[in-house]
Every structure is written in structure tokens, then in C-alpha cells.
């Protein structure tokens, strides 16, 4: 883990400690994916509505705190703003609102919506003969929802090779409905598939740059829920939606370094 990824994780912990909100383990599993996207796609933090930008949608909306900390790192807004997370009339909700936060393309939270909307955007760019690309990050737990697979079927049938689905394979559903062999599933739905270490930034950037070749691309990112802090990894269900106390914050900072 490099210093930037460590600092983003530290901010996630600081803000969760301060606000009492945030799903820390899921945020930790997507940090490198978010960085790979924002270090690869066309975007301008100073002009979030730039007409030629690529699109990123965080479909697993409960990782919003991770996205806020990443957007702040790349200059969309100061990190100090995010400390109001979840407070009355804050811009920063526990799930992101596209009308309130620069860089948010879709308000998400209910699982299984982002991939369909992303497919619609990708189809629109195709019709407009525009080279803009669409990236959507979905969870393996989210993929219990049938709408994920319905949209995947349509995206493949429409040949949306400007659509990249990042699949956070953090094995979050072991206690009920695991998505086993996701790469095979996406292949059978007609996707190009790349499987990478979801915490290897350079590997992720390579996959994101690669894109689909005549078909949408699924990047199956093998990740660890809570990556970076052994306590979060060990007690993943305890920490699913729990904020650290001051003492726990120091302990987790120690584990991160």
C-alpha cells in the first residue's frame, strides 16, 4: 500500500470516528479501484460537468465515504468538508447525492441500480458516436440482485464496449448467497473479463485502460474487505457499519502503518 492509499484510508477512519457514520470495511476494499479510475479516466476536478468527461458510478452506494475521500484527494473539494458526513443539512450523506456533491454522477444507495443506468449512458454515447466511456463499480453482495444480471445481459446484447464494470470481489456474502466464480458468470453473459488483484493499483489501471473489445468489460477485482487493518479483516461483520472510538482509531492507525 502506498502513502496515498494509506492516507485515504486514514481519512475514512478519521471521518467515521468524527461523524459516527460510514461502512469502513467496504470502503477499504475499493480504495485502489477508485484511484485506478480517477487516475485513468477523462475528468477535471475543477470542471466536474465538463462535457467530454468519462463517467464513474459507484453502484454500491454504501461505500460513499470511500468515494468522498478519494474525490477530495483528487481535488473535487477539501477533505475538511467531509467531516460533516451524515449531519443534518450536510452535503455529504451516507449515500451520495448527485445534486450536492461535485463528481457524483448518480445518487445511489439501493443496490442493483447503477449498472443499468451506466448501460443507458454507454448506449447513449454509442448513438452519439462519442468516445466517452462509462465505469461502474458494483459489489459481489450487490450482485445478489437480479437487476445486475438483467442489465449485464442487455449491455452485452447491445455490444457496449465503452462500458467497464468493476466487480468488487470481496467475498462479502459468504454467510448467505456468495457469488462464486464471477469471471465465469460474466464470460457466460458475453463480457470480456479481466481478473486482477484489487489492491494492485498498477494492475487495476492496466485493466481499466484496456477496456472491452467489442463487448463490455468486467474487471473482477479480488479484494479483501477491510484491507489494510487486520482487525477489520478479522471481524468483518462486527465492523460492517461501525465507527471507531478514539482508542480504536489509534489502534487502526497503528495497523495501517
Amino acid at each position, binding site marked *: 500500500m502506498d502513502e496515498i492509499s494509506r492516507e485515504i484510508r486514514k481519512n475514512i477512519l478519521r471521518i467515521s470516528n468524527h461523524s459516527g457514520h460510514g461502512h469502513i470495511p467496504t470502503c477499504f476494499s475499493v480504495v485502489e479501484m477508485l484511484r485506478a479510475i480517477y487516475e485513468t479516466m477523462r475528468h477535471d476536478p475543477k470542471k466536474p460537468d465538463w462535457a467530454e468527461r468519462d463517467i464513474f458510478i459507484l453502484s454500491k452506494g454504501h461505500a460513499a465515504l470511500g468515494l468522498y475521500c478519494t474525490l477530495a484527494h483528487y481535488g473535487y473539494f477539501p477533505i475538511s468538508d467531509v467531516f460533516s458526513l451524515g449531519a443534518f443539512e450536510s452535503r455529504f450523506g451516507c449515500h451520495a447525492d448527485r445534486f450536492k456533491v461535485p463528481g457524483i454522477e448518480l445518487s445511489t444507495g439501493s443496490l442493483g441500480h447503477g449498472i443499468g*443506468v*451506466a448501460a*443507458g449512458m454507454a448506449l*447513449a*454515447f454509442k448513438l452519439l458516436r462519442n468516445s466517452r466511456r462509462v465505469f461502474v463499480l458494483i459489489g459481489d453482495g450487490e450482485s445478489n440482485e437480479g*437487476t445486475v444480471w438483467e*442489465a449485464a445481459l*442487455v449491455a452485452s*446484447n*447491445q455490444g457496449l464496449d465503452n462500458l467497464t464494470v468493476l466487480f468488487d470481489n470481496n467475498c462479502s456474502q459468504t454467510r448467505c448467497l456468495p457469488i462464486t466464480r464471477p469471471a465465469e458468470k460474466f464470460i457466460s453473459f458475453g463480457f470480456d473479463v479481466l481478473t486482477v488483484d484489487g489492491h494492485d493499483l498498477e494492475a487495476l489501471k492496466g485493466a481499466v485502460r484496456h477496456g472491452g473489445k467489442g463487448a463490455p468489460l468486467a474487471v473482477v477485482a479480488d479484494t479483501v474487505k477491510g484491507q489494510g487493518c487486520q482487525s477489520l479483516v478479522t471481524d468483518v461483520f462486527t465492523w460492517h457499519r461501525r465507527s471507531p472510538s478514539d482508542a480504536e482509531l489509534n489502534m487502526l492507525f497503528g495497523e495501517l502503518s
Partner: protein
Amino acid sequence: MRRQFRDTVMRLAEDDERIVLLFGDISVYLFNEFSERYPDRLLNLGICENTLVSMAAGMSATGFHPIVHTIAPFVTERSYEQVKLDICYNGLGCTIVTCGGSFDYAWDGATHHCYTDLELMRMLPGMEVMQPGSKKEFDVLFSGCYNNRKPSYMRIAADEHGLDLPCEFGKGVVVKETTGADLTIATAGPILGNVVAACRDLPVNVLYFHTIKPLDTGLLERFAGTKIVVVHDAFGLFEAVSTACPAGGAVYHGLPDSFCCWYGTLNDIRRKIGLDPKGIRRKLELMQ
């Protein structure tokens, strides 16, 4: 009315290349000419209403004017959350045009009946809800809303009310006004034909609302001193009227609290539940 949908879209598409049709595998043959003329702009995506709505939201975000078209229950009931979140919450306007509202597919049984659509859509913030009762009303209402960047819902009906009425979005119509009448009937959509037949010689007022949201509350206020009965073969108008005139309340003459599984035709079911002219008249006579 479905042919009118095609004709209206054909006319508008000539000057507006942002119109794009997303179909749930219905009306495809009817739109053959459209497909031939604009091969990129009719997308028969499949029998997948949730994705149909989500993709319409995505296309709207890029500036298109998407029109989602499929059978009423499958998009309003099954895909309610997609309409609520992807379209309404995200402010990504599109027009949903359905067929098969109420009992237009009477013979198919309760899986294909849909009388909740208007009320479900009415409850969503920002949604415009229309139930045209004639081809002319469809043409006027659709042409006015399809490109306004707001979410809109409208039904295509299997029958029409048979009257030539003025039509302006958001404006109710006084179909009949009787001086001194203390009973006012409010209705919407094609069932107006049965209402008019039922009360031709009765001293009542008849108000017609092709636009259920926003409701023409100003028109209702004019008749606030009278008893109001909503006659409608769906939910939605009664709830809108009741919200608008809480003082005296309104009476509902419409659907029973049971599935209407008798097959047959639309008119068979209307007769069975008292929404044919005879049944409506019986209700009105009891109220007078």
C-alpha cells in the same frame, strides 16, 4: 390510441433527434416505419422493465428524451423503485407510455390488470401523471411533456370517451354544469363516456381530469360547495381529489377490494363492478 402514439412520435421525431424509444418487446410491428426511418432510435431492449427504466435514466443524463413503452403493471408495479430512484430522485426525466391500464387486458386475468399505476406514479415527487381519454388528448399531452426534462407517465387506453373536449396540460374540463346542482362527478380517462351516458338527464355537474398530477385544484374549488363523487376505474384520481378538497371529502365509486378475475372484456368487468352507465347511474341516484 396506440396508433396515435406512433403518429405523434413520428411527427415529433422529424424535428427532434433526441427522441429515443425504449421498448419492452411490445408495439414493435406498429413502429416498423419508425425503425426503418430511424434505425438507431427504437431500441427493443427486451422483456426487462427494470433495466428499461434504468437505461432510460442513463440516456436522459446524456441529453436524450427517452420514451419507455411497455405494459402498465410490469413497469409501474415491478419497476417502481427504478422509476422512483433512477428517474425521479436523480431528476433524469423521461416519459413512460404504457398500455394495458385497468382492465384493457380483461381476458388475461389479474396478472395483466393494472389499476394502481396512476396512484403509484402520482405519489412520486415531481412526476406528471396523465390519463388521456382520446387520441387528441394523447397527442396534445404527449407533445407537451416528452421533452420537458421531467418524469411523466401516461396511459394509452384501448377505448376512448368519444367526446371532443378542449385539452390543455394541467387543466380540468367542465363537461356538464347544472345550475343549483349539489352533486359533482369527477372522472378521468375513457370512463368519462360511461359517466356522460349515465347522467345525461340528471341535474349534476361533471368534471373531467385528463391530467391527474398536477390536478386542476382551482376547478375543483369552484365546485367545493357540492358533494363530490369520483367515478374511476383505477386508483389515483380519488386520492388526488380527496387531498385537494379535504373539507367535505369525496366519495369513491370504482374498484372493489378484490381481484377482478372474470376474464371477458373491459366492458364486461366494468359492468360487473358497477362502472357501466347503468351501475354509475344507480350510484348517482342513491346519492341524490
